[in-house]
């Protein structure tokens, strides 16, 4: 149990910050795709800039992860088909129901229980990808 406490706390921070910055709101996603507010671009943009800085610093200072090996980011396999096709399908769904996977979980905590319908459909979508994987262009 004890080894999981830190993951619970990190998750809790994530849930609080996405709720408090309204990134879990359907309305904010609609507004983002309408280019009518800087809010979501500001969140993603500052997250990426901070992320680049933190990862560069970690590399320069040879920061080690808690398991003793150098801190490293898993590399995505090269290619473009799966990213552009899968990404576009994801974007269609993201804009249609106004929630990506993180917010789907977090919204349950805010009492918006009907999001469970979306989450269940997302699990089914993941399952069907697993079934069709070898027939799809990657």
């Amino acid at each position: 149990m004890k080894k999981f406490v830190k993951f619970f706390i990190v998750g809790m921070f994530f849930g609080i910050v996405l709720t408090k910055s309204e990134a879990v709101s359907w309305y904010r996603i609609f507004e983002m795709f309408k280019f009518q507010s800087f809010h979501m671009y500001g969140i993603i943009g500052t997250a990426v800039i901070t992320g680049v800085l933190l990862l560069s610093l970690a590399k320069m200072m040879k920061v080690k992860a808690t398991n003793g090996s150098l801190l490293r980011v898993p590399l995505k396999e090269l290619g473009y088909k799966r990213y552009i096709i899968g990404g576009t399908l994801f974007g269609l769904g993201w804009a249609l129901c106004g929630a990506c996977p993180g917010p789907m979980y977090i919204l349950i905590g805010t009492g918006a229980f009907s999001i469970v319908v979306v989450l269940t459909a997302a699990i089914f979508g993941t399952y069907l990808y697993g079934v069709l994987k070898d027939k799809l262009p990657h």
Partner: protein
Amino acid sequence: MDIIFQPWPWYVSGPIIAIVMFLLLYFGKTFGMSSNLKTLCAIGGAGKRVAFFDFNWKSQRWNLVVVLGAIFGGFIAHQFLSNPINIDLNEDTIADLSTLGFNNAGQSLLPPELFSWDAVFSWKGILILTIGGFLVGFGTRYAGGCTSGHAITGLSSLQLPSLIAVIGFFIGGLIMIHLIYPILF
């Protein structure tokens, strides 16, 4: 204290999300919310029929704990750290939503026109939510990540595949909002 209860600005939220990503990497893991959907399939026994889900899901328990924490964080933020919700949306957004039939935009996190139980149990409502959720679940695994894995982690580590995926996210989102919404609503 009031500053906590007000909505948090983007320049506070963005860097904290990057710290969340960094901490998970520091713990020897990675920041990826959609991987949990795959794990949930495996827990449900999908590995018996489909090789893609045939892995030891127990190795992913840490990520499920992140999800539990995130749900709890949503609860804390909503119950104890928030004023009544009044999202400061752009006037144009509110007007556009009103033309589409969405009223009182920003008075709740989710529009009751789609997420109230009455809406969920209408044909149109259930189709929109299940097709939307399905596309998110299918698309994220096809693309190998979602907003956390590609837009935050992948872009932070300057990976080209993630940039392509994020461009895909926006192609899909823009098609949906600008071309399909006017037909649906």
